[in-house]
């Protein structure tokens, strides 16, 4: 049952060199740089996003994921969910408004998978970038690179996928849209949605806690994906897989790496999810087809290359 978590809000990623990271996320992927703060963090957004930003980059000697934030309906929901998380047994902490630029207070917790999540109810909305509020054009001029539309979802790897799934279902009101099930019936991958999207977050089992598999940005069409792949070659960016199609969610995809080794995805298309839909099930024995529907196999480092 939905509990008032409405969508992904932001992700904070660690990068080893900020200027190289900006060439990648801003100039190549085409996100818009909107602000920098006194901690050296840089804030970016996809042009269709209404919020002021969705991606926060922070310089570090170790790349990877700091946290993912989800937006909730309002402050009452935020308070309710904070109590529910504490009652469920999560360790919960809170950041005051303004700690992250233009964002209200944030309730933070660590999932059994080892990843840090946070909930917030308020963030400044600056509107879709480059478009008027009234009689807007369909897209703005002066976009660069892949012209990514929005930060869409992440795939995270860590232990305790079933416990993490239970927390997201029971406390946060996400639904299980797709799953990969091992022969002994344990869920080894859980794709979860708090919206009508095929997934807003996905978890895949691995022994190391808190790992980032990929952060994904939405493109409009398959043709845009082909051009994105051209741009990867033009800019000598390391490509991982694609363009191809996923079995899971049936989205079309390319995987590649940022200059600190964080895996990115650009994708388009794919399935949708209403809260009454039963989960789509894939067998772990057929994981090749589930992940790369055309190639039918997973190259050896796909599930090992993590940050």
């Amino acid at each position: 049952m939905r509990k008032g978590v409405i969508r992904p809000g932001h992700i904070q990623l660690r990068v080893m060199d900020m200027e190289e990271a900006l060439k990648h996320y801003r100039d190549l992927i085409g996100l818009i740089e909107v602000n920098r703060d006194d901690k050296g963090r840089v804030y970016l957004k996809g042009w269709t996003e209404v919020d002021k930003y969705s991606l926060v980059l922070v310089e570090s000697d170790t790349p990877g994921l700091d946290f993912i934030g989800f937006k909730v309906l309002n402050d009452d929901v935020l308070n309710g969910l904070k109590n529910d998380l504490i009652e469920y047994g999560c360790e919960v902490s809170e950041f005051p408004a303004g700690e992250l630029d233009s964002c209200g207070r944030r309730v933070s917790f660590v999932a059994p998978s080892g990843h840090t999540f946070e909930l917030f109810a308020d963030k400044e909305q600056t509107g879709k970038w480059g478009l008027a509020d009234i009689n807007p054009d369909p897209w703005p001029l002066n976009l660069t690179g892949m012209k990514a539309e929005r930060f869409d979802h992440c795939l995270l790897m860590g232990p305790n996928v079933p416990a993490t799934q239970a927390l997201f279902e029971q406390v946060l009101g996400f639904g299980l849209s797709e799953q990969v099930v091992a022969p002994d019936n344990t869920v080894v991958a859980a794709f979860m949605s708090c919206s009508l999207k095929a997934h807003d977050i996905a978890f895949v089992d691995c022994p190391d806690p808190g790992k980032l598999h990929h952060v994904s940005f939405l493109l409009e069409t398959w043709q845009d994906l082909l051009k994105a792949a051209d741009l990867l070659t033009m800019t000598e960016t390391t490509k991982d897989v694609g363009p191809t199609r996923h079995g899971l969610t049936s989205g079309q995809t390319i995987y590649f790496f940022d200059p600190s080794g964080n895996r990115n995805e650009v994708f388009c298309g794919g399935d949708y999810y209403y809260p009454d839909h039963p989960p789509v099930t894939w067998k772990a024995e057929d994981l090749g087809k589930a992940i790369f529907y055309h190639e039918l196999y997973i190259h050896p480092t796909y599930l090992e290359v993590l940050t």
Partner: protein
Amino acid sequence: MQPFSHRPVVFLKENTMSYHITIDGEHFNCPKGQTVLIAMRTLGVDCLPVGCCAGGCGVCKVIVLEGDYATKVMSRAKVSIEDEAKGIALACRILPESDLTICRVKD
């Protein structure tokens, strides 16, 4: 010269200064200015796993037994300061400055 029977045919650009790299008994040349892992991949040699090629994931971890090299920035979660002093490095970040003898390190 090794037979190329199972490898793509690759020609080095003429007049490119290059270094001789040995990894666990396999040999290839690395052009000056290129990282060891990219040179290996370009030549179709398959003695190290290739991951992010950006010093983040750690799958290409090696120890350099002999030779001089510089490194680009590497994740501290994968190569500590002590490791680095021992010659441990990520092949995708190694820029050779002489011929190198290298061994794969598995975590």
